[in-house]
């Protein structure tokens, strides 16, 4: 069975390099889906996001969700990277790459991973504003809960 690559790190990453690692030397991969989540500047008001995480649980929880994705779809490869610490607008926060024989499972598994990451992985975002003020903690969105919930009622 495919074993997922899961990394929780402060450093940045190169999505193209991570994607290449999943396909190099292989001839059975027909589809690769790569999703990169980036830090927005919120119309120029944000100087950075500070991402707090629960060390240990963050890795464990992402691995649990990755195993769930592997049990639902016949993936050839799966890589998930999530950063913590200070992240500035334009920088990547999260990466999900899925490799499969066909695009359907690659798209679905990547979307599933992101929906579950947003609601189950122990990360919290604090906004640092350009005027020096503390923008406070980003609130969890109901839409993210709804997006994650649809996978439990409709496994495909």
């Amino acid at each position, binding site marked *: 069975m495919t074993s997922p690559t899961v990394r929780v790190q402060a450093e940045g990453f190169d999505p193209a390099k991570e994607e290449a690692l999943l396909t190099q030397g292989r001839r059975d991969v027909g589809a690769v889906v790569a999703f990169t*989540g980036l830090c927005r500047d919120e119309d120029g008001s944000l100087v950075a996001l500070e*991402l*707090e*995480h*629960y060390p*240990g*649980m963050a890795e*464990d*929880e992402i691995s649990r969700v990755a195993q769930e994705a592997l049990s639902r779809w016949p993936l050839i490869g799966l890589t998930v990277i*999530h950063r913590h610490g200070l992240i500035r607008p334009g920088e990547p*926060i*999260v990466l999900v790459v899925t490799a499969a024989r066909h695009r359907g499972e690659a798209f679905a598994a990547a979307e599933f991973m*992101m929906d579950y*990451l*947003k*609601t*189950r*992985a*122990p*990360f*919290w*975002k*604090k906004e640092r504003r350009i005027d020096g003020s503390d923008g406070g*903690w*980003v*609130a*969890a969105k109901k839409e*993210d809960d709804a997006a994650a919930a649809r996978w439990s009622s409709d496994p495909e």
Partner: protein
Amino acid sequence: MKAVYFAWVRERIGRAEEEISPPREVETVRQLVDWLAARGEGYAAAFANPKTIRAAIDKTHAGPDAPIASAREVAFFPPMTGG
């Protein structure tokens, strides 16, 4: 057991972690929240709305009715906003 706090729960309580010894009658996550909330102003503020509190026992998500008897580490935090 060790209690650990994250994000605004940590800020309101004023510390990231501590050793706690709840009495024997505190058996579930919900009861532990009530017990912690009674420890002082910061705790009361952190746990003012139990609906906005998530918990994990030994780094696994745990619901309000989860038993805490064998827990080594209990964590409290707001709903997650990663991704």
